[in-house]
Every structure is written in structure tokens, then in C-alpha cells.
């Protein structure tokens, strides 16, 4: 029966690339990420009929579960998603296996290797494998070495290695980790995850820029006066204080997700749509990016930490009062920074990046503000004519808005701003896949386009090195300003950019 909810003619029409027969091995299978993102994404791929029949998912962690225990635990954790699709889950769960492995024990990995050979036979997976390191970053290096030692990474065509974020803590540790990982596997086998790149809307920036003729000619310093990239969360640290205390907003969001958004916004057009061509351009633009004033990094950044807030019915704790957080913590939960991209296209155009927790809205967006017209011929109905803006909404309400001036109705010749709007929901009416669905499929398809290459990761860390050094060596120069929960960060952040005669967009 046709329903007006989904487009019946769309059903079954998407032709996705087919994942080849293989085993996906997840280390950290008893952890948070596995049941919150990975298994749901795999189940979704299964429902979309994209999982081949010759397939296996082997969960690994230290605890001594059996295949059945693993299946049961996942079933319980995913109960919401499974509801109504119990039959499909039963079939899907036949793909799930479990093998107890401590990545630090080489004999465990050798045992795993034997188990994988057995599974190859029963599942007909031809020794083709994807290894997913969803364990604490402390184990990335030793995990790679153990896999290498067991010979599991030997065939570059048949084994792939997916590594979660964070990749390193700073430039030198990232470099060191790259070296180790690259000594265990070829770069073409390594897939460093940045789940923002899995988002449809981030990929859409590339399509918008390079599939249309009208944007590229004005996508430069001649027409654009500034760029703002915002990623805000309403939640606080939740139950991840242990991790967050040692990370903070710079490492958790700015260096990876925000910087990747900067890269796709600012990169040059690649010669062709091929993984290396695209990653070359991203690496180049990151290498050309610098803090606005590298000699005075304290003038290019504002850090903040949320204090108490909310309203009477819903009081919110400050960061330092959260469970597991040091009561004198100096971890930033908000960071804003100003960056220049030193190349022909962007010379002199400031890029302002900000991200934080406990802000009033959950949102990701990129705002390109265009230069003013040279002469204002028309009076504006509001005080000043507003500059043209192109707003790319990453989440939620994915889409784009273009703001421009039109004649205000009436006998005069006054101008006023209006908005031209594109919304994914209104145009397509179908939710886009969660980033992990796309990325897991791409890794299993050996398509590295949406994964960060070693030079990109290193360039992204290098960009923030002056700030990290300052935070480590003379933190008083980069004070942590308090901001009330559910406000747009510390007032200092507003002053920080109003010096440049620019204001944060209030979404």
C-alpha cells in the first residue's frame, strides 16, 4: 500500500556498491562504540541488503564471552533498533562470532588467526579481512604490531586496518604512531576514521562546490570575507569524563572533525574524483593552514569551560561538578580559534572555528560570508545591509541557506535580506545514513576517500602545535573562561572576534 511517508518508487532503487566477501574483526567488541555505533551500522547495512552472504563479524575483547553471549548482549543493547525486525536480526546474528583476545598477548592473536581460518571455511570469506581497532588509543600501536606479528596484515589486497580517533595526542605522538602503523601495514591498508567525513552533508560540500559552476568562481578571497565553522553540543561530558579529562575540546573536536570541515571547505578542486587526488588536496590545504598569529598563539584562541546553568526545573551541573571530573580541572569544554590558509585562494580570509559542550543548540554549520558591495546604492530597511551569506548546515535540519538582499515591497527603493533555502528533508524526505554506515562500508570496499591519510593527520596536529605547547607549558597564557551552561560560550569569545568587526552567527 503506498504511503505518503516514504517514496514508494525509491524503494530498492539505490544501487550501492557490493561489499566483497570478508570477515570484519572488531577489537573492543564489548565496548561502548561497538554496540552504540558499529553493530547498529552493520545491521543497517544488512537491512539494506548490502552485506554479502559470505560474511562474518568477529568480536574480540578480553572478556571470555562465547559466540552466543556476544549475540545475546548485542541483541539486548540494540533492542530498540531490532524491534519489529526480529526475524532479520536472527538472520543477521548468524554472522556474529566472538573470540576472547587480549591484544597485548601475542599468543591470543595467533589463536585468533587460527579461528579466522576456520571462519573463512564456514563463511567462505576467502581470507579477506577488515580489522577494526575500537579499543583505547593506548593499544593502537601494540595492536598493530600484534596483528603484524601474527601475519594478519601481510596481504595488502586482502587485509585492511581501521583505526578510531583520536590518532595521537599531538604532532609528535601522531608522527610516532604513524611510523609504527606504517611499519605494520601499507598506507593503502590503513583507514583512519573521522566520522564527520561519513556525514552526507560534509560530502555534499564537495558536490556543491565542484558539481556546480556558480560557486567555484566566487569561492575565494576576492568574494569571501570570512568563514565560520561551528560545531556545538547541548550535552555535557556525560559518562565519558575519564576520556574527556585527558582530551578536551581541542583534541576531541577541533583537531579532527572541525579541521576536516575546514579542509573540505577550503581545498582546491581535485583533478579527478579519486581517493588520492582528493586526499592530496586536503593535505595541501591543511599544510597551508596556520594559526592567525603563530608567534602569539594566545591571541588566536579562546578556551572556556561550562559552569552551572539551566533553569529551575532543570539545573545543570558545571563541568567541575560532573562525576569523574577533577574539581580543579582545567580541561576546556569550549574552544574558538582563528586560522588563515596561506595560499592564493584564501590569503587574508579568516577562518573562525568554534566548538563546545553545553551550548544552547546541537548544531554543525559552515558559514561563508561574502564581501560587501563596493557602494551601497540602496537604503536598507534594517540598519545596515547584511552581507550575503551561504550557510551549509551539517546537522540537524541538513541543508543550505543563501542569504541575499531584495527590494523591500513598497514605493521606495529599500532593500532587505531574504533567504533561499534547500533542505534535505523537504527535498528527499528520507533520513541520511549515520556516518558509520557509510564509513564501515567504504572501508570494507577498500575505498579510502573518506578516511584521513597520515599526512593529513599530521598536518592537522601541526596546525595546533603552538596552542598545545602553550597549554602544556604556560597554561596561564591561555586561560579557561567560565561560561554558563546553555549559553554560546564565554563572552571573551565574542570579544575575540568582534575585534575583527565580525560576530558569531547566532543560529
Amino acid at each position, binding site marked *: 500500500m503506498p504511503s505518503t511517508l516514504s517514496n*514508494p518508487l*525509491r*524503494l*530498492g532503487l539505490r544501487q550501492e556498491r*557490493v561489499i566483497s566477501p570478508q570477515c570484519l574483526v572488531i577489537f573492543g567488541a564489548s565496548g561502548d562504540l561497538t554496540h552504540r555505533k558499529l553493530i547498529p551500522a552493520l545491521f543497517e547495512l544488512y537491512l539494506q541488503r548490502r552485506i*554479502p552472504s559470505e560474511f562474518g563479524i568477529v568480536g574480540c575483547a578480553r572478556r571470555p564471552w562465547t559466540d552466543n553471549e556476544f549475540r545475546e548482549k548485542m541483541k539486548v543493547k540494540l533492542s530498540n533498533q531490532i524491534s519489529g525486525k526480529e526475524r532479520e536480526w536472527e538472520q543477521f546474528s548468524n554472522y556474529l562470532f566472538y573470540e576472547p583476545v587480549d591484544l597485548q598477548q601475542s599468543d591470543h592473536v595467533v589463536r585468533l588467526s587460527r579461528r579466522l581460518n576456520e571462519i573463512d571455511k564456514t563463511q567462505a570469506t576467502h581470507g579477506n579481512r577488515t580489522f577494526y581497532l575500537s579499543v583505547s588509543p593506548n593499544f593502537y600501536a601494540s595492536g598493530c604490531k600484534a596483528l603484524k606479528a601474527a601475519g594478519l596484515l601481510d596481504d595488502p589486497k586482502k587485509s585492511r586496518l581501521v583505526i578510531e580517533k583520536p590518532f595521537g595526542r599531538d604532532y609528535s605522538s601522531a608522527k610516532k604512531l604513524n611510523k609504527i602503523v606504517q611499519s605494520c601495514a601499507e598506507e593503502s591498508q590503513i583507514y583512519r576514521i573521522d566520522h564527520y567525513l561519513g556525514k552526507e552533508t560534509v560530502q555534499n560540500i564537495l558536490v556543491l562546490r565542484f558539481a556546480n559552476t556558480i560557486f567555484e568562481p566566487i569561492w575565494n578571497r576576492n568574494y569571501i570575507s570570512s568563514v565560520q565553522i561551528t560545531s556545538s553540543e547541548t550535552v555535557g561530558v556525560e559518562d565519558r569524563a575519564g576520556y574527556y579529562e585527558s582530551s578536551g575540546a581541542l583534541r576531541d573536536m577541533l583537531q579532527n572533525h572541525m579541521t576536516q570541515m575546514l579542509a573540505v571547505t577550503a581545498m582546491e578542486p581535485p583533478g579527478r574524483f579519486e581517493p588520492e587526488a582528493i586526499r592530496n588536496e586536503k593535505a595541501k590545504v591543511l599544510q597551508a593552514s596556520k594559526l592567525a598569529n603563530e608567534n602569539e598563539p594566545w591571541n588566536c584562541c579562546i578556551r572556556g569551560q561550562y559552569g552551572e546553568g539551566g533553569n529551575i526545573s532543570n539545573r545543570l551541573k558545571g563541568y567541575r561538578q560532573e562525576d569523574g571530573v577533577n574539581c580543579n580541572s582545567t580541561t576546556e569544554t569550549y574552544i574558538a580559534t582563528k586560522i588563515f590558509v596561506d595560499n592564493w585562494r584564501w590569503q587574508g580570509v579568516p577562518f573562525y572555528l568554534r566548538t563546545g559542550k553545553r551550548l544552547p543548540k546541537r548544531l554543525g554549520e559552515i558559514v561563508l560570508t561574502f564581501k560587501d558591495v563596493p557602494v551601497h546604492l540602496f537604503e536598507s530597511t534594517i540598519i545596515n545591509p547584511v552581507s550575503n551569506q551561504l550557510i551549509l548546515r551539517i546537522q540537524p535540519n541538513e541543508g543550505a541557506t543563501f542569504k541575499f538582499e531584495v527590494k523591500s515591497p513598497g514605493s521606495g527603493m529599500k532593500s532587505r535580506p531574504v533567504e533561499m533555502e534547500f533542505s534535505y528533508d*523537504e*527535498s528527499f524526505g528520507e533520513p541520511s545514513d549515520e556516518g558509520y554506515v557509510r564509513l564501515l562500508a567504504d572501508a570494507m570496499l577498500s575505498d579510502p576517500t573518506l578516511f584521513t591519510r597520515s599526512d593529513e593527520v599530521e598536518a592537522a596536529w601541526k596546525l595546533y602545535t603552538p596552542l598545545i605547547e602553550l597549554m602544556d607549558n604556560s597554561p596561564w597564557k591561555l586561560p579557561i573562561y567560565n561560561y554558563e551552561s546553555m549559553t554560546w560560550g564565554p563572552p571573551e569569545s565574542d570579544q575575540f572576534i568582534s575585534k575583527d568587526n565580525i560576530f558569531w552567527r547566532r543560529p
Partner: protein
Amino acid sequence: MKPQLTLQTPLELPYQEISNYLNKLWISEDKDNSGANTFTLMVWQPAWLEQCLVQKGLVNGPITGNLSPEIIKVAKKFILDQGLPITTSLNSEELLNLLKENLSNEDFEDFRGQFFESSISTLNPRRLITLAPTINKNSDIKTFVSAYCPLSDTQAMQPICGDLVVIRGDSASISNKGLKIIDELSIDELPAWLWWNGSLDESPEIFEYFTNYGLRLIIDTALGSPQRCLKVLDQLNNLNKAINDLNWVRLKNWRESLAMIFDPPSRRPILDHITDIDIDIAGDHMIQALFLISWISDKLGWSFLRVERDTELTKIEFERINGEIISASINPLSLGNPSIHLGQVIGLRLISKISEVQKNNTCVILGCESVECMRLEAGGMADMELIEQVVPNSFSTSEYDVSKLLGSSRGNTSPLFENSIKIALQIFNGLNN
């Protein structure tokens, strides 16, 4: 695109020795390189038209198996010169019979099976086997082999090689000896495809041999009579065989464009009030149109009621679950320069009536050219809200379409296609009862 490199010029060997030779070849090669871990592709490559034209001296040899623009041009001219209708198919028996008159029976150089379009060779087939029947009725079987390595322009990795085998001879010798060789050449652990690059009307015993073989089949129902094509589809479907039909593949733009129109949720209600569907096709071969209408009715949950032929026009009625009737028609048009594939859809019109007031109703028009859209607009359509879109028919070659299938499909019949076949059969049988 990556060019294909043949390591050796194809070597002619007695057919009994082929499989032995290939086994040795791969053992003596570098032991790390036991050949690409991909698939076997067999191609039934009669190229009757080309063979005739070369024999007649109307085009220059060698015979390649590719339907080149020159061949198409010369064949179309021949059709006109002989006074045949302009809609005559390039595979029609009538045409071939005329061409076969007074053939020289000379042997021409025949390169069939030795070159593949790069879209196919990039996929690194492990083994390419071409069956090349000759029009010459008494030519005994000849077999050729060669190893090839696609050149990769990206990585300096060791190329992964495959081999190709050509089996040439008259139909009888292919049936008697050629199929035995194929038996010996199968590689068990790899998927095997058969591309039947000819009309389904001919050599049914060879076709049947393959369907019993459990291959993934690629056929083209625009070649061959609708009766025979639908019968084949029906049998294969009942046997649960994997079928891919290029005639269905070529509908992709139409399915996608129509779906795209209804992506905005605000337009979905239009679908619930469709009253009429008209499909224009080029030439009198209705299978592709049947697929399109069957797909739409399947997705919108209509059931087939009746069908009748009204001179050229085929009229079909469907019923919505609430009892409302939808009238559909398939209308063959003769075009000045028809596509080489008979019966390609060139226009689609949907009318959706939500109210008595004409301007609240909607007319959706898809046409392969704007002229076709304008044609479908005639007769009061402009009073309704019009949604129009041009859907250019795809000009990709069959080789390219096949490579897409090889590269993307799991080999099973697409569920959308499977359902469409069932409905298309109901309609077609209704017509013949």
C-alpha cells in the same frame, strides 16, 4: 581508462589441449601470481550482422564482435535500400536472410574475443571465454588462448593476470565440441557469468546448456521476439536462476527520474491519485514498456485487471487497493532514426486527479527529448499542474552496461526486476489469451 595488454598473440591450439595448456601456463608463471581472484565471463558472440556485412564487402574486416557506428550506419542504409520498414531491427531474421543471400563463403580475419572494451578488462576477469559461431556452415572448431594483464595506471603493483579463450566454429561444432571445452575450463571457486550477446531466438540448445550450468546470466530482451524473451524470463525465474537483462538496465534513468520527482514529501500524495499512464516506445517491441509499467504498478501496489490490443495501442487496466481503476497504454511510434534497441521507452505521462478542478490535478511528463515532452503535453495537459523532465536515453554500449553489472551486482536477479517480470508476464499472457 586502462588499456589492455595481451602478453602473447593468441595461440591456436587443438581444442583437446586447451585446458591442459592453461593449467600449465599458470603453474609455470610466478608462483605468487595464480591469476586474478575475480570471475569467469563467457560471451556468446554471434555478430551475425557484422559477419554478413564483412562477407558481403559492405564493411571492411576484420570481424571484431563490436557493433561499431559504421556497422550500424551501413546496416541501416541496407534496410532502406532493400525497402524494409525503417523500424526493422538490426537483429531481425528478415534482414539477416537478405544479407545471407549470395555470400562469398570466404574466410575473413576474425578477432572476436581477443579485445574487450576497457570497462570490462579493468575488472580483471580471471578468464574470458568467447563463443564465436561462424555463418560459414562447415567450419570446424578452432580454439585460441592467450594470457593478458591489464595495465594499472595507479599502483606499481604486480599486475594480476587472466587468460582468454576463443572458441570459433559453426554452430554444430560449437554444440558438439565447444561446450565440452567449456566444461573443462570452469574454475570452481569463482563466479561465472554468461553474456548472451545475441538474440534469444537463436541456438536455444546452446542457451539451455548454459542455463542448466548455473551461471549468472546477462541477456538483452530487446533482441529476440517478445514471446520467446518472456518465455525465457519465466523459465529462468521459475528455476531461480540469476538473470540480468540489459533491456531492464537501460530503464535505469527512467526509474531514477520518476522516483526523483516524488522525493519531495510534498509530492507523494500525487501517487495515490494516478488515473492514467501512457508510455511511448520506439518501434513495436513492448517488453521494455511492460517492465516499466510493471515496476510502477508493483511499487504502488496496484493489481493487474485486463489488457487489450486496440490496433497498435496496448491498453491495460490496473486496480488500486481502494477499487479505483488506473488506465495505462503502450503506444509504439515509428521514429525516423530508431535506436538500435527495439522498443526503447521514449516518453511517459502520468495523470493524477485529486479534484474536479483541473488545475489542482497533476500531470507528470518524462520524455527522452523536449519534443517528446511537448507531444505528451498536448490535449489539455497544460491546464493541470505540469511536472516535466527530460530523460535522455543512455548511449552507453552494451559492453559498458555489462561491465556495470559485473562490477556491481551480486549476480542475483534484482528483486525489483523479479517482481516486474511476474507482472509483465501476467499482462503479456492476458494479451495472448
